[in-house]
């Protein structure tokens, strides 16, 4: 990591593991439940959030000394909403197919509490470069969990990955289905995401006891 000082590198690496926004801070759970039935959707959402949070954190950080604290939440909201609309319009104009796939998620980004959380907790008190790294780091940490959950839900729920059948055909009974395997319909409904996230939290805390809160 010659590019980044150790402190800067930690801004990116911490949220990936020991300070993960989903599994440790329990933020962004709503979208993690809603859109992880498919791996592709999870990945697309992760990339969108990386962009919005990276840029948003920089914008808020640049404005941090002139934002009146009374209206800072509204200002943050305006910045997120503006960025999201820009992304939406640019995609519609130059990547129409992609924008159709994204349609539902673009709006969801605004409501993602990780974004407001990082604006409020980090960007308002730190310089643009650090805020940028923090934004990217937290969005990556969010994305990693999304992709893991999406992977298991799509594999176990539909027997596909990125829409491609990997376990055989459930209707004509080929591959794994020929020996009696069945897709688990429960995995494609949102509560299954909660269970997968729960298992991830469990694994993470049992490997690193320091993360366990005092009861």
């Amino acid at each position: 990591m010659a590019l980044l000082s150790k402190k800067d590198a930690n801004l990116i690496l911490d949220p990936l593991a020991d300070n993960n926004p989903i599994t440790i801070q329990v933020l962004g759970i709503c979208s993690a439940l809603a859109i992880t039935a498919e791996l592709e959707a999870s990945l697309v959402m992760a990339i969108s959030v990386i962009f919005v949070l990276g840029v948003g954190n920089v914008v808020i950080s640049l404005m941090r000394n002139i934002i009146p604290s009374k209206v800072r939440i509204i200002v943050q909201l305006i910045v997120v909403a503006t960025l999201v609309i820009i992304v939406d319009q640019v995609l519609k104009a130059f990547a129409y197919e992609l924008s159709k796939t994204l349609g539902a998620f673009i709006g969801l980004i605004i409501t993602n509490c990780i974004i407001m959380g990082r604006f409020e907790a980090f960007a308002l008190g730190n310089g643009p470069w650090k805020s940028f790294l923090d934004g990217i780091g937290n969005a990556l940490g969010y994305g990693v969990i999304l992709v893991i959950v999406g992977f298991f839900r799509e594999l176990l729920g539909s027997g596909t990955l990125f829409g491609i059948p990997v376990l055989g055909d459930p209707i004509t009974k080929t591959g794994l289905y020929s020996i009696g395997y069945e897709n688990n319909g429960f995995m494609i409904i949102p509560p299954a995401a909660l269970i997968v996230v729960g298992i991830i939290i469990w694994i993470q805390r049992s490997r690193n006891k320091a993360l366990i809160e005092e009861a």
Partner: protein
Amino acid sequence: MAINTEKNSYTVIFAIIMVVVVGTILAFLASGLRPQIDENERFAKQQNILYAMGVNRNEGEGDVSFIPTNEVENEFSKYITEQLVIVDGDAQAQEEAYLIDLKRQLNALKKGEEAKLPLFIGEKDSKKFYIVPMYGKGLWDAIWGYLSLDENMVVQGVYFDHKGETAGLGANIKMRFFMDDFSGESLLKGNSLSGINVVKGNGDPLNNDKIDNEVDAIAGATITGNGVTAMIKETLKIYKPYLETIRTN
């Protein structure tokens, strides 16, 4: 010079400047990109209409491939031989009828005003296709699509799309495994135009029975499926006067 950011006057001025700046940026962006977005939407409509009549680039199983955007205009004028609007049951030719906003026309119809209902006639391998646009409600937001049928009121193909159905569940109405089930299904029940119901557990998951007015629903997407059923029914109802004139059986 240190500014006192806590003063009320500062807050108000800040808010005004922020709104003006953001509003200006978005207004310029939206109007600057508008022509490009309109063109994309126009191509997408042409692609969807052609898709419903079986003009597409589907290769493998499960693949939904449209005619590429740079060819779609030519293909559209080649395959779509007539574009009609139906006003009070009278069909009249109208150029570019496919650009009509169906949602607005349906609203007008609901209020009892005059509505222009678009319909397209396509021809492929000397077979005629009648393509009707559809618009309805899913679970979260709008769903829409195109239904192509022949003179016997047998579905030749469909295309569905949605604005915000749940990924992995309702969003799957635009997947091949769902759309393909409609092809060959008869819209007639007895002698009247009935529609096609999206039903759970119809005991026919491979959809071999084409006269049962049923296709297999998507697990976990009941409300979206019901929306599709209702959308087809509604569409047939408003297009019935015209469809009865072309019906041959």
